[in-house]
């Protein structure tokens, strides 16, 4: 046998290796192993599969009571569709339903207020503790120290109001909206017959951007287009509403009320219109004396001819509506303005506007001191020892939020909310509520069980009320479903409206004083993004995707400044600014130059600057309300934050 020499061995070995490698490569094995490696390193999540079905449910969040269809895959809700798809809630609801930061159980504060330290407790324990605090105050004849802040006139809002009033306190307040401001200024909130009107003059109410009941407003908008209904928007800054309206009357900042008074002057003096409401004589006297058209034109920037034209359009319309309440989701106004704008409705003798007030859910004896005029008045001038906050965020949304937080530190606060927000930080108990998709509806359809231990806010309130010695008797329902039929009742209070000449007397003087301030030459006007609103939307990641780069970008909030003003004040595009008002300073924000805002105006987005509201909303930008005017309106008790004057640096 021939000896295998090293050379041969090397050749054989080399050949074997070469052959093996070639075979391996051409067999595709390395490609397949690469493919496997790609898939393994990506570790992409695969959503759990399940049976697909569409379940129907009534959404009872607002009086519209839309039928919604929820696409389920197994037990997961993946898509919400509604029959009229007008509701903005629908799409974002799933993000609340499955938000990882949802509160699972009732929480009791363990650290200091504002430290965000809570420990879970049972419902029984929480309710017992809460009710005992209320019972004690009632027993000690200090019922007035019990207060509540509601978000709006919903079922749970009415139930909470009933509970507080039945305990002997009249201190129930609602977050600033066109309804609450109107309640103070007009004695009731305006119900507009948008479906049957032929002409709408809106004074700063951004009807197409989230104002009022957005669902209904969208339907009305389409109707108006079809029927050729005229929409005239009186507003300072350009927005979607001014662009889609048939006409935009641009007014100088803060002069919407003055324009309305100018129109009233014309209608009273030259068209001989009168109103039957009490105090009209005194009111109209001031209007005639102080608001001649030339002066109004000079103050508002609208020429006399246009003012007359506008007033003529109003009275020539068959069924006109004049809308009061500036803003979209965050509404603020002065009572003078509300009365002036509403007053135009009475001067036009329209049948399309009525004043309604909540009728409550049955009689209860209310004792106790008269309440403050509004929430901001209460925060500034009153004290409380127990406060209930129902799905609201007054520490964030009120301009006096910081003052409220300070007072909350010394009081016992219960916050009902599904996510920890700025107000919950200052609460002693945080009770988790549910999203509109959870729990049964009036047809007893339950699609999704309430998340962990959360409950419907109404059920929470009924639960607490039944443990209150004094209030329990007023609560004959066992669940909010039972209470639902009796909720939402209103009564017509149109006849109850009265003009107030006292507040009108000094309006112009005060306006002149405000405008005369050389230290603060610019007006700070809020700008709202449809989904972010007054701050509620920012907790949802998909909402973050709708925010454009001149509102919030790369960690900085942007404000809008008119190009002419930018020249005047020496501001360039993208420059960092601080905004300073009488109340303080916020910064830094970046400036975007655009003629969408009027000269001498800083347009600042609302909804940013939360201290707590899930990681998606926290520490993004600044909260404009911190420096907005806290001057309280005597009738509505709310701060008119559209009247803020600032300077930039």
């Amino acid at each position, binding site marked *: 046998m021939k000896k295998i020499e090293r050379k041969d061995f090397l050749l054989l070995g080399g050949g074997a290796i070469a052959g093996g490698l070639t075979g391996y490569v051409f067999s595709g094995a390395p*490609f397949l192993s*690469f493919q496997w*490696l*790609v898939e393994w*390193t990506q570790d992409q999540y695969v959503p759990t599969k399940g049976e697909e079905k569409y379940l129907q449910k009534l959404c009872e969040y607002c009086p519209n009571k839309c039928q919604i269809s929820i696409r389920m895959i197994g037990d997961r809700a993946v898509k919400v569709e509604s029959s009229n798809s007008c509701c903005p809630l629908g799409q974002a609801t799933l993000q609340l339903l499955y938000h990882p930061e949802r509160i699972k159980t009732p929480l009791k504060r363990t650290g200091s207020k504002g430290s965000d330290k809570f420990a879970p407790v049972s419902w029984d324990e929480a309710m017992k503790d809460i009710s005992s605090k209320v019972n004690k105050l009632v027993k000690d004849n200090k019922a007035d120290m019990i207060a509540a802040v509601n978000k709006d006139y919903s079922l749970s809002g009415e139930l909470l109001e009933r509970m507080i009033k039945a305990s002997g306190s009249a201190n129930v307040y609602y977050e600033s909206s066109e309804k609450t401001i109107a309640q103070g200024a007009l004695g009731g909130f305006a119900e507009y017959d948008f479906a049957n009107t032929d002409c709408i003059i809106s004074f700063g109410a951004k009807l197409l951007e989230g104002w009022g009941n957005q669902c209904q407003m969208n339907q009305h908008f389409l109707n108006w287009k079809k029927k050729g209904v005229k929409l005239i928007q009186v507003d300072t800054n350009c927005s979607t509403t001014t662009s889609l309206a048939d006409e935009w009357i641009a007014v100088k900042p803060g002069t919407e009320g003055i324009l309305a008074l100018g129109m009233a002057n014309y209608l009273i003096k030259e068209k001989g219109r009168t109103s039957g409401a009490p105090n009209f004589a005194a009111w109209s006297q001031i209007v005639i004396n102080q608001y001649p058209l030339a002066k109004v034109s000079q103050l508002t920037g609208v020429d006399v001819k246009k003012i007359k034209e506008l007033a003529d359009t109003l009275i020539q319309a068959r069924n006109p509506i004049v809308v009061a309440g500036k803003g979209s989701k965050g509404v603020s106004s002065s009572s003078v303005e509300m009365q002036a704008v509403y007053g135009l409705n009475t001067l036009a003798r329209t049948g399309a506007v009525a004043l309604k007030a909540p009728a409550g859910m049955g009689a209860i004896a209310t004792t106790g001191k008269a309440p403050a005029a509004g929430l901001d008045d209460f925060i500034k001038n009153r004290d409380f020892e127990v406060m209930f906050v129902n799905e609201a965020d007054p520490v964030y949304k009120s301009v006096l939020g910081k003052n409220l937080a300070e007072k909350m530190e010394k009081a016992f606060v219960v916050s009902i909310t599904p996510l920890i927000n700025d107000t919950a930080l200052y609460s002693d108990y945080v009770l988790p509520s549910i999203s509109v998709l959870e729990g049964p509806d009036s047809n007893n359809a339950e699609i999704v069980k309430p998340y962990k231990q959360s409950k419907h806010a109404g059920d929470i309130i009924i639960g607490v009320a039944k443990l209150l010695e004094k209030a329990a008797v007023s609560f004959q329902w066992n669940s909010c479903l039972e209470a639902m039929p009796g909720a939402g009742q209103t009564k017509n209070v149109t006849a109850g409206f009265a003009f107030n000449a006292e507040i009108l007397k000094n309006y112009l003087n005060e306006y002149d004083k405000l405008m005369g301030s050389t230290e603060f030459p610019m007006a700070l006007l809020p700008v709202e993004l449809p989904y972010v609103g007054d701050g509620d939307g920012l907790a949802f990641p998909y909402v973050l995707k709708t925010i454009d780069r001149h509102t919030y970008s790369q960690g900085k909030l942007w404000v809008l400044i008119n190009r002419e003003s930018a020249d005047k004040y020496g501001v360039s595009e993208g420059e960092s600014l601080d905004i300073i008002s009488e109340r303080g300073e916020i910064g830094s924000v970046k400036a975007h130059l655009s003629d969408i805002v009027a000269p001498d105006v800083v347009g600042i987005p609302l909804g940013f600057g939360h201290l707590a509201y899930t990681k998606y909303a926290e520490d993004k930008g600044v909260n404009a309300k911190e420096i907005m005017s806290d001057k309280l309106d005597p009738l509505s008790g709310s701060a008119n934050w559209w009247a803020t004057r600032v300077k930039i640096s």
Partner: protein
Amino acid sequence: MNTLVKSVIDFIVETYNSYSKSMQIFFIFLAVNIFLFMVFAIQILFWGLGYTDMNNIFAMGVWIIGDLGLVSLGGGAFFTGFFLYMLRVDKLEPIINSTVLIGFMCYLFTFVFLVFDIGQPLRAWFGYAYPNWGTHLMPQSMLTEVVFCLTFYFCVLCVELIPVVLRHKIIDAIPAFHYIGHYLHRLMWIMAAAGTFLSFFHQGSLGGGMWDVLYGKPGWFRAHHQFFFMAIVAATAGGTSFMTLCPYIAGKVMKKEVAPMETFQTLAKISGAMFIFYTTFRIYDVYTMAAKYVPSFDRNYLDIWGGYYGIWMLVFEFAACFTAIAMLNIKKFRDQEKFMVIGISSGVAAIIMSKLYVVLHGFSIPNFPWKSFAAYNPTIQEWFITTGGLCCMIAIYMIMAKWFRLFPHLDKHEHHAE
């Protein structure tokens, strides 16, 4: 094991100490860059391209500029090879090894940068397995053409590089390798021909074709043959300048004559001629863009030169081109070393600027009238991966120059000296 490591470390320290102070600082600089390159490479590969300043508007950045530049300048390899092996311009013989090595490294690092630049490096092989071919074996996607031609050309370069490596004293002593090296050298002309053929395709497609087919983007679209061939000419012009510049700098650093001045001058002459060709072509290109192509988008040529990457880029490029033409074509200038160096540097700068303008200017142009010009600020990760790559190339070049027979002229010189 320990002794091996120790001897390697001793060797490195000894070599390091044998150099002057300024060279030592330079080595530290190289080492730091390469180290940071590796650190950031891991970050980018594992945690994603989010760490760069590229975004949905400015989708490509430093690495693509690097790729375009490397491929274009590395294209000098094919052209030099073409002249030496096909046209038998023997004066180029002394620097052909350096040229091949530079070409090899340029293409190698093109692939390296590309690996970082694509979002899924593990799927890079899809380009070969699922190519976007159109009809009749014509690639429908320019990138398919790029991928295949670059790969084949890289293989050609590898084969061309082998003899350079094999000439090392120790390796050359082994008869088997000596024969392989010798025969490869005889077959070099086939490699050069193949290389030239392939280079036409990938230079044209990567430098030009890839951009001029984008019919939706006003900064890039032109007639295909126009930009395609212009890119090839750019590669011949800039590449040859680059191939002259690198060994020249090496010679200055090593303080030796790595190649006779005639070699540099020959290559510079070729480069100068190609620059005339390129500049003419470029003027035609700018003219048709302004008169025909950009207006077909209903835009104005001068308006799209807004933003940060403005018309100064074009001005600079032409200035550099004309300088190169003057310095390299006029014999009086070319023969003077100082002016020749200015000429070839301008040439390289002109081509680099043309690649910069393709990427920076092209991406910054707004697509909608309400959007503004975009800007691009590369992040630290992008910078260090780029400079790290370049430092790797410099390091490899220096190693080859010192320990391998990169410059055969040096041996002759030493021979003569003895």
